[in-house]
């Protein structure tokens, strides 16, 4: 395997890992908040979170590209703080991936949180548990499996990202050239053998991850009541 390919693999894993960690940190409170809302305006937030599911990635990438440009508030603030450009950087990829994969993490968590009965939290509260304690001692253990699902889906979806990366990351080897882009390059330059290697690798990886996920789901589904 060439250095460029190894670089692309490393970059992809790094991007997916960082994105997943950030998504769990940001997505958990967001999913919790959404799960406790009644119908009404929070549906707008839910719609916003779900947008990447249906928007062509290029739409998202296009707007992010405009947002990350050096002459915008975000772009210039970033440059002042870090001394580097945001556009076409790894950091820009991370930001784009977080937004792009957000629904894959938030939705499973939100569904799981909604299944935790308010009544159990009330019981915990009367036994002296503060809200954070209630979340840690009741909600987390009851939804642990959904965190694994959410993290796996977020990770896998980030690995499979193409359109957004192409728009905001460009194709800089070692900086923004992830696996899907490297594959695209091979195909563009008619290097089909190399393209096969990457494509088949991604197929096997995705298949294996999803298999593990679904098998576990079937084996011991979440039991709330006897």
């Amino acid at each position, binding site marked *: 395997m060439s250095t460029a390919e190894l670089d692309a693999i490393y970059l992809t894993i790094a991007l997916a890992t960082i994105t997943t960690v950030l998504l769990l940190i940001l997505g958990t409170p967001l999913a919790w908040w959404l799960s406790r809302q009644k119908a009404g305006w929070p549906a707008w937030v839910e719609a916003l979170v779900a947008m990447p599911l249906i928007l062509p990635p290029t739409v998202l990438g296009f707007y992010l590209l405009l947002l990350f440009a050096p002459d915008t508030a975000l772009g210039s603030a970033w440059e002042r703080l870090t001394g580097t450009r945001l556009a076409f950087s790894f950091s820009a990829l991370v930001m784009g991936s977080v937004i792009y994969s957000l629904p894959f993490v938030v939705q499973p968590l939100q569904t799981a949180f909604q299944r935790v009965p308010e*009544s*159990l939290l*009330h*019981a*915990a*509260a*009367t*036994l*002296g*548990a*503060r809200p954070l*304690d209630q979340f840690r*001692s*009741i909600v987390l*253990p*009851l939804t642990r499996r959904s965190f694994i699902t959410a993290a796996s889906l977020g990770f896998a979806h980030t690995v499979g990202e193409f359109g957004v990366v192409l728009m905001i990351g460009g194709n800089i080897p070692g900086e923004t050239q992830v696996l899907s882009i490297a594959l695209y390059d091979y195909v563009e330059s008619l290097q089909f053998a190399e393209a096969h290697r990457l494509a088949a690798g991604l197929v096997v990886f995705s298949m294996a991850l999803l298999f593990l996920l679904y098998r576990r789901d079937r084996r011991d589904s979440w*039991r*709330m*009541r*006897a």
Partner: protein
Amino acid sequence: MNDLTLQLDCRGQDSFRLQLDCQLPGSGVTAIYGSSGGGKSTLLDCIAGLRRPEPGGLIRFQGEDWLSPDLFVPPWLRRVAYVFQDSRLFPHLDVKQNLEYASRRCPANSGTSMQQVVRWLALGELLNHNPAELSAGQRQRVAIGRALLSAPKLLLLDEPLANLDHAASQQCLACLQHLARELALPMLYVSHDIEEVSQLADHLVLLEQGRIVDQGSLLDLCGRLDSRLSHEEQAAAILLGTIGTHDPDFALTELEVEGETLLLGSRQQPAGQQRRLRVPARDVSVCRQRPLDSSILNILPVTLTQLEEDGDARVLLRLALGSQYLLARITRKSANRLQLKVGDPLFAQIKSAALLMESADHNE
């Protein structure tokens, strides 16, 4: 000062409104009795802090404000334990961990110890089981134990026996009676079952459509004609008596009430103990002369103190037996024929009466 003061206005679904301005005793067992939909659970939720009433309310318990116009103490700081109708045991924890969940979160060295709770509620066998493996009665006992281990200042019970079969509910009731005596822990007990309430409560609050219609001591309220209780189908007076000797030949136990002796079918009971006797109004009849050849064993000399029509066909009588009262429900025709007047000396024939369970020997 040691009371529970409530000034609440709480809106529920469909224009339901709970409106209270009252003082409840801050000790003993207070039963909140009323038909379902009367706001009983809403009231407990407000006291626990799980529901916010309209602004301007007040909840003060033993001099401590839990709710006032500029204060809302959250549930986890109120130290109010709550036993729910549906147990609400944590499904991911076994029985022991459920109990520890409470004890770990209460101030150190306060309240009852785990061993005590396990013994009182007979939980020893259950400790390593998951809540899903328990019967409804066992789950409820664990829930009561968990509540006690949070070292509460006040225990709320919302129809804790509603989902239990008769045997399990009697066992739970015995546990609760025992606890009420042992712990000096004030309890608010919500129920729509007057027999449960008669066994357990010291004080009774009648709640109908979000308002308190009456409150007072259980014995007093059960023996009064102007309370709504006496007009219910299963109306019954409660007498307080002392256990006398037991006659094993006929399987009858004596109960001394106001100098009179009643004979009750029951197992042997320790003599000298105080018991409550529940005498349903429909099982009491009256006559002017003491009947000599009646099959009814318990015939007591009483004085008619009050008489009130109960529907078209029936009349309710309040009969004084010393300082206690019996209720009798007879037909209006009989009352006319006997020409009953207040002050008449009468004989009350008690066809059936139930000795209420005593807490001291519930382990038998």
